[in-house]
């Protein structure tokens, strides 16, 4: 009986597993095994199946998200890759934005391209901005290059010609020639991987895809085999950065789309939680071992984007990573997690992160050789964590080691811990505020949905800093992303750039374009969902003529008609006003890029029923809890989460303990359990 569904999320520090069986949901958390990521997956799968007494053959679906592609990009462990580009432009990918992302650091280095200059080769050819061929492709020159790549044992090739998103004829022909000349070498064309304007981003995306392709192909094959050996014969689907899932086949072709899968799963979980609580304005807050992610949720819709930067090498600063143009859920990610390291700067101010102690050696309190103070050390010293219960008791904590490490911040370890907690919370709050303003939004009066191992420890304080009165901690919060995987639709997004003035739209061309995009997306989605009902979304990326950044405008789901010249302008004006609070009269509007996404219909859950209040729960113990907001330690009541039932309520200070995380209810907050067992924190202030 294929009744169970398994989700596996490999993160930077932890590998999380969730198993849904007809009766209940099981979860577990293991340290990631960076040398052989499949090992933790298979070990974890065996553990959780044993725990649930679920025969492997009962698993009907495995959904997997992994940081493996990301890690290969960060650690430069991908294939030997070459770039073939328009002659005269082989350095564009290295010049990047010709930019110093850190103004004051004269020692700053830009990330090295994944392909060194001697394997970036120009071929004579040229397409103009409107698609006209100015110089035909020199096929003989291309064959000569192919011979060179063969001699150099190149394993993967990226092809990116200027304006190929408008006219792909040269790239397609190059793909054919390379297939003939280099059998067995994987070739990624920019017109397939990222057919969008801006040569640096497009080239960077295509190279990243080519670079991880051989590795991901091999890993996914091994994992599928490993699962079979373990007796799990279920289909394997992969989580993408867009929040959709796809087949192994598509993932092996476009592995770059897998890079931000964990956070995407978290956002999908938060969307469901927002629906269950009927929240039209929420913020998803995911804090793990290495980073924190914040996503705005308005009207039960996730914000989407096509810009993402992987492997930010310099304090998570924008511009210090490799840009990839893929469908992503718009979120802000900062180097603030349980493992983030704290130190004092030149002015004696506390700085937290973005570097993390990771899973090896981990925070000082893990007792695995870490000596630098981290956020988890601060949480331990503040009394938020039960040393014998961390990660379900699998990682014993040593509070005295945490206290010792924190002495480098302040002789009084508790003051140091309060400072570290306050600064990391403020850092996350700042990032959230700036992210909101960049999206024309505000954080105040929203509800915070907290998940990921470290988020429930910091959520209440963060909410107060952001002017939010309410926090929801879902069931299984400590392994939230994996929960999200099981709620994600099978989906795919297709993009094209066609630059045109909105008042002179080429209606016939657009209709042909969208028909082709629909067919392309459908072919991919049908691989994993042959019979299901599909939902389509269309977006245009538009701007005022003269501007440099486009905004996303949702389009109606029907063929274009001549009236759309005025209609799209009105849609743009509305979207622009939403973002910037005003429109600019008399300016022309232009559209650059068009997307179509297709997904299986996953209706959101209905709002839950209210519950009748129950007598207050009985604490299992009390513990001293230091509150950084007040500077005072109080006796906090401790509750075991599994023992709390819907309707129960209790005031802070309190701690709710479960295997994968602890929820801090500070003084001034009230906690209650809703019909679905979620913890609701309300700020009394």
């Amino acid at each position, binding site marked *: 009986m294929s009744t169970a569904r398994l989700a596996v999320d490999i993160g930077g520090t932890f590998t999380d597993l969730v198993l849904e069986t007809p009766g209940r949901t099981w979860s577990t958390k293991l340290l990631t095994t960076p040398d052989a990521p499949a090992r933790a997956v298979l070990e974890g799968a065996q553990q959780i199946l044993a725990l649930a007494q679920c025969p492997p053959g009962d698993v009907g679906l495995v959904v997997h998200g992994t940081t493996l592609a990301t890690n290969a990009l960060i650690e430069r462990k991908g294939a030997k890759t070459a770039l073939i580009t328009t002659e005269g*432009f082989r350095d564009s990918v290295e010049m990047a934005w*010709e930019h*110093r992302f850190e103004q*004051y650091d*004269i*020692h700053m280095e830009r990330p090295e391209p994944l392909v060194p200059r001697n394997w970036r080769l120009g071929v004579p050819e040229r397409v103009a901005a409107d698609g006209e061929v100015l110089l035909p492709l020199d096929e003989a020159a291309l064959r000569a290059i192919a011979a060179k790549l063969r001699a150099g044992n190149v394993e993967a090739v990226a092809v990116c010609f200027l304006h190929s998103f408008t006219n792909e004829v040269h790239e397609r022909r190059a793909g054919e020639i390379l297939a003939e000349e280099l059998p067995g070498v994987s070739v990624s064309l920019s017109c397939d991987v990222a057919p969008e304007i801006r040569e640096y981003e497009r080239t960077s995306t295509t190279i990243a895809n080519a670079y991880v392709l051989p590795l991901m192909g091999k890993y996914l094959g091994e994992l599928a085999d490993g699962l079979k050996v373990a007796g799990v014969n279920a289909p394997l689907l992969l989580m993408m950065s867009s929040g959709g899932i796809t087949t192994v086949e598509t993932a092996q072709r476009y592995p770059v789309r897998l890079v931000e899968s964990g956070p995407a799963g978290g956002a999908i979980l938060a969307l469901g939680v927002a629906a269950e609580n009927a929240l039209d304005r929420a913020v998803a807050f995911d804090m793990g071992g290495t980073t924190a992610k914040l996503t705005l949720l308005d009207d039960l819709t996730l914000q989407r984007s096509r810009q993402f930067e992987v492997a930010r090498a310099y304090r998570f600063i924008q511009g210090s990573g490799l840009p990839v143009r893929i469908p992503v859920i718009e979120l802000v990610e900062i180097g603030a997690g349980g493992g983030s390291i704290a130190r004092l700067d030149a002015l004696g101010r506390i700085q937290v992160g973005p570097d993390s102690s990771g899973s090896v050696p981990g925070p000082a309190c893990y007792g695995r050789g870490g000596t630098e103070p981290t956020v988890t050390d601060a949480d331990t010293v503040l009394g938020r964590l039960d040393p014998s219960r961390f990660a379900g008791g699998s990682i014993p904590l040593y509070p005295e080691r945490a206290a010792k490490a924190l002495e480098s911040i302040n002789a009084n370890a508790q*003051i140091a811990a309060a400072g570290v907690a306050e600064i990391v919370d403020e850092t996350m709050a700042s990032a959230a505020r700036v992210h909101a303003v960049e999206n024309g939004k505000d954080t105040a009066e929203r509800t915070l949905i907290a998940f990921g191992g470290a988020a429930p420890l910091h959520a209440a304080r963060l909410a107060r800093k952001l002017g939010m009165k309410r926090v929801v901690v879902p069931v299984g919060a400590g392994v939230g992303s994996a929960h999200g995987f099981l709620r994600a639709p099978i989906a795919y997004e297709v993009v094209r750039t066609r630059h045109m003035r909105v008042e002179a739209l080429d209606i016939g061309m657009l209709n042909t374009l969208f028909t082709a995009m629909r067919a392309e997306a459908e072919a991919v989605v049908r691989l994993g969902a042959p019979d299901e009902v599909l939902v389509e979304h269309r977006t245009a990326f538009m701007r005022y003529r003269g*501007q440099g950044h486009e905004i996303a405008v949702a389009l109606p789901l029907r063929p274009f008609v001549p009236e759309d010249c005025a209609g799209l302008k009105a849609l743009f004006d509305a979207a622009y006003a939403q973002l910037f609070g005003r429109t600019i009269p008399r300016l022309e509007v232009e559209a650059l890029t068009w997307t179509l996404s297709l997904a299986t219909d996953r209706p959101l859950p209905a709002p839950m029923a209210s519950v009748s209040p129950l007598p207050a729960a009985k604490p299992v113990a009390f513990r001293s809890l230091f509150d950084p907001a007040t500077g005072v330690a109080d006796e906090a009541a401790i509750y075991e989460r599994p023992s709390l039932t819907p309707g129960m309520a209790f005031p802070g200070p309190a701690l709710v303990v479960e295997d994968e995380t602890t929820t801090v209810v500070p003084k001034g907050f009230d906690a209650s359990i809703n019909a679905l067992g979620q913890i609701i924190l309300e700020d009394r202030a």
Partner: protein
Amino acid sequence: MSNQNGPADSALRASPSGHQTALSDIRMQVMWNRLLSVVEEQAKTLVRTAFSTAAREAGDISAGVFDLQGQMLAQAVTGTPGHVNSMARSVIHFIREFPVETMKPGDHFVTNDPWKGTGHLYDIVVTSPAFHEGKLVALFSCTTHVVDIGGWGQSPDSRQVFHEGLFLPLLPLVRQGVFDESLMKIVRANVREPVQVEGDIHALVACNAIGEARLSEMMKEHGIATLDELGEHIISRSRAGMAAAIAKLPQGSWYNEMRIDGYNDPIDLKAKVTIAGDHVEVDYTGTSPHVSFGINCPICYTEAYTAFGVKCLVAPTIPNNAGTLDAVLVKAPENCIVNAPWPSAVNARSTIGHMLPDVVYGALHQCMPGTVPAEGTSNLWNLKLAAGHGLSEGVGVPFQVTTFHSGGAGARPTKDGLSATPFPSGVRNVPVEITESITPLVIWKKEYRPDSGGPGEHRGGLGQVMEVSHRHGGGFGIHATFERVKFAARGREGGEAGGNGRLSLASGTVLKAKGFQQVPPGDKLVVEMPGGGGYGAASKRDPAKVARDVTLGLVSAEQAKVRYGAE
């Protein structure tokens, strides 16, 4: 279960006052961080809503919050150091003209006075009072480079500031929420893109309004009624930090000079740098006089780039505020090109301003060896291209475009210089595909210039070469404002000079590095950007690095042999 906090608790009880001080210090840090986040939001608002490419792509904007004496408490880190001190000083001019006690909610004041703002007419500064619970608590100020300001446009060919466009003295712009419509009419009538310039001005006002709202939220949250205590904390902490950093340096005076191309005649930039206790003084006495073209630099812009250059070396992580502002004192005699008086032409003042950190670094290198980079291209190699009536020959639609590009930066004491990267400016480039989609231009080449990096133990950054033609055979023109064509970026400690820049036509004609010139129909513009200077003798470069440069094609086999002594 409460054992782990026992020892810490008793320590707290033993020393309650120490406990409170430590906590209040943390609270000050949190509020300081918050204030930095407020100005960051202010700046993001401006970048997102402004129109000019300079603001949007290059981040040529700034935003900050000030106390009621006009002391800056926090400034956003943006793409341009040119506003580092200049915007801070401009607030003082505003409150002299419009005393704070006369300011009302909804007021906004404006100027683009190059000598009271940020150095040229293109930069419009708006300063606004911020109220919290009905009480004036702070001032916000912001600046952006607008799309157009009339006059000669992007050209360095102007002779006096009067040629450079619309000059707005310190003026009320909005009074209690009501825009001065007469002023806006004058603006619209004087600029080429009235709708966009008006949009830029609205963006400045919105930017300060966001700052005011966010500051008020922060004060409410933290329960403070004034910024006095926080301001004092920020300024004193930062001042002490700067003083401590400067006190660690060798004390005394050092001198350097650098010759650059200038408009027609070479210009000598001379600086005496004195490190004295808690401050650094940079005296530009001896520098060439101001000239009859638009490359003169008002003192406010000189101060900005000088302070930025020093701060990068001495205290790069201390945030800018009134406590750091006075740590670098700049002196320059009136009438020299780095203290050009009204009514000198100043439009392309960055041509000089961007060279100043190199001048100062030559002096600092003598007392801080091993920390100072070699000279770089420094001046931006932006292509300011245009076609239309009076500007170009042949067919084609009129256009104006500025694309941001850079030559090589100087080698660092332990690292090669960055190729095709600006320093000290912090701008970003414009993609070729974007430039080609909005103009009738075709860029045929944009690639590193091999051998242009100054040879050295650490190699200078490479320049790049760009070739531009008109797609339909039309002509176009270039407003050239380039440096390092005659006088290259010099190396340090035996490192050699970077390659000189060059501007020419594919047909062979060499163009001047400054001033408006035409590219005839059918011809191609060839822009060869300079390289940065090297650091340390080339003979000391690790042979493996030389070999790698040859493999990568950054250094030719011949240069490897001749300059680096490779086999």
